[in-house]
């Protein structure tokens, strides 16, 4: 009886040792994943999932509400409206976007340098 227990114990230990060896040989991809997760612990487990894809589908979205803008202008009267910090790419919440925040895209009137 006790002999059997010893044998199973030894078998478990060997298989655990094998697993240890396997863990040490991690693919470069998995070690990169570990690095990423240590930097961003809140990263979800579904990288290709809907969040990433929906961000991709929403490219180009700009928010400007002329009603909010005009009301804010009326309130502040002669003062200037606060402009967004240059790093902010999305304008949401309390900040009232102004036309300056949405950089006007002028068409390229200059000829391409490839044709120069």
């Amino acid at each position: 009886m006790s002999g059997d227990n010893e044998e199973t114990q030894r078998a478990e230990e060997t298989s655990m040792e094998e697993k240890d060896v396997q863990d040490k040989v991690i693919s470069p991809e998995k070690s990169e994943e570990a690095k990423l997760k240590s930097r961003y612990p809140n990263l979800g487990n579904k990288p290709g999932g809907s969040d990433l894809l929906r961000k991709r589908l929403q490219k180009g979205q700009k928010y400007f509400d002329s009603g909010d803008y005009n009301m804010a202008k009326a309130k502040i009267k002669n003062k200037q409206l606060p402009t967004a910090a240059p790093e902010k790419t999305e304008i949401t919440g309390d900040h009232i976007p102004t036309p300056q925040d949405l950089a006007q895209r002028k068409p390229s009137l200059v000829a391409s340098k490839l044709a120069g």
Partner: protein
Amino acid sequence: MAGAGGGNSDVQWCFSQVKGAIDDDVAEADIISTVEFNHSGELLATGDKGGRVVIFQQEPESKNQPQCRGEYNVYSTFQSHEPEFDYLKSLEIEEKINKIRWLPQKNAAQFLLSTNDKTIKLWKISERDKRPEGYNLKEEDGRYRDLNTVTTLRVPVFRPMDLMVEASPRRVFSNAHTYHINSISVNSDCETYLSADDLRINLWNLEINDRSFNIVDIKPTNMEELTEVITAAEFHPNQCNTFVYSSSKGTIRLCDMRASALCDQHAKQFEEPEDPNNRSFFSEIISSISDVKFSHSGRYMMTRDYLSVKIWDLNMESRPVETYQVHEYLRSKLCSLYENDCIFDKFECCWNGNDSVVMTGSYNNFFRMFDRGYRQDVTLEASRENSKPRSVLKPRKVSTGGKRKKDEISVDSLDFNKKILHTAWHPLDNIIAVATTNNLYIFQEKLN
């Protein structure tokens, strides 16, 4: 070591020309976004982020210089798309040209399709080398003549003039795409073409711009269930009923338009089985296919994902017949490539004229060629340092191990801002066009 070439392992590549500004300060508008030869190879079109198209024409070979094929010089340039703002959806629409596709030439004029995120345009490029002279009622400069001075009648005649190349938009195909257009492809029937966005593919008739047929729709009823998007689509080169589209999950679906009007049911699905033990956070992202191209023969298709190029036999869906590693050394850099967004870069790929060699771009202004027959590959660099006329390009090597040999470059020294996303191969000759960020390089085979 010899370069890779069309069936002959001794092809060496020489610098021929470079177009674009030399200065390092690159304006956004000058970023090249697409490169495409026409069907004869005589014309080479580029599109940029500023919505402009520049077309180069090959000079006829001169008898004085039999050792090189003609140079490409500017033929026409025009503003194809302009920035727009969709007020209803609060959406800014970039003028960047995503793709250019040439129509096969049917008459003296040339036609191409160019597209940005939302609108496709058919452009006619025509030459004018004669003009009518001798009007009865107008002077040569256009002013109307005093009728009292008109005493005789004459027939206006055409006289030669300096060549003028005019580009005019013949059709505008708009309002058919909710999402961003990534591909256009002209059908072999020369009457229809497809346009694909992230979730839908539409079929158009080149003559009719006020309606299109939706042939693929993968939008789920509930957007929360979205798992994959369409990344590229192309018509088969000679079967007008067949097209393929690739996805962000690494699958390619082949559809037959004879089966039904809506091709949501694929006829074939090409997918390489994945080893579940190797799966990581990055697996799906790097398996996303950025480009799909049929071979000229129509027997094979090639796909490009982040780290490799795969050749598929259309008769075998279970796995690719050939896989070529473009820059496997990046696998141990995926964390930083994810952080700087480079992991989302969309590289294109192309075939040579006889389908024996394939080419794709990489970082540090490197590009790679894989000779399928000779099983050789080569890494070359597009740089102004190798831009002496007809100088042979030296193969480059990235050192992966600890010891870096002389002339090798280490992975950490690679410049990830210098990416070659767009390349094109002349349909008949060994002439290639390689786009760096804002310069266009043309390389030719060394002819003795």
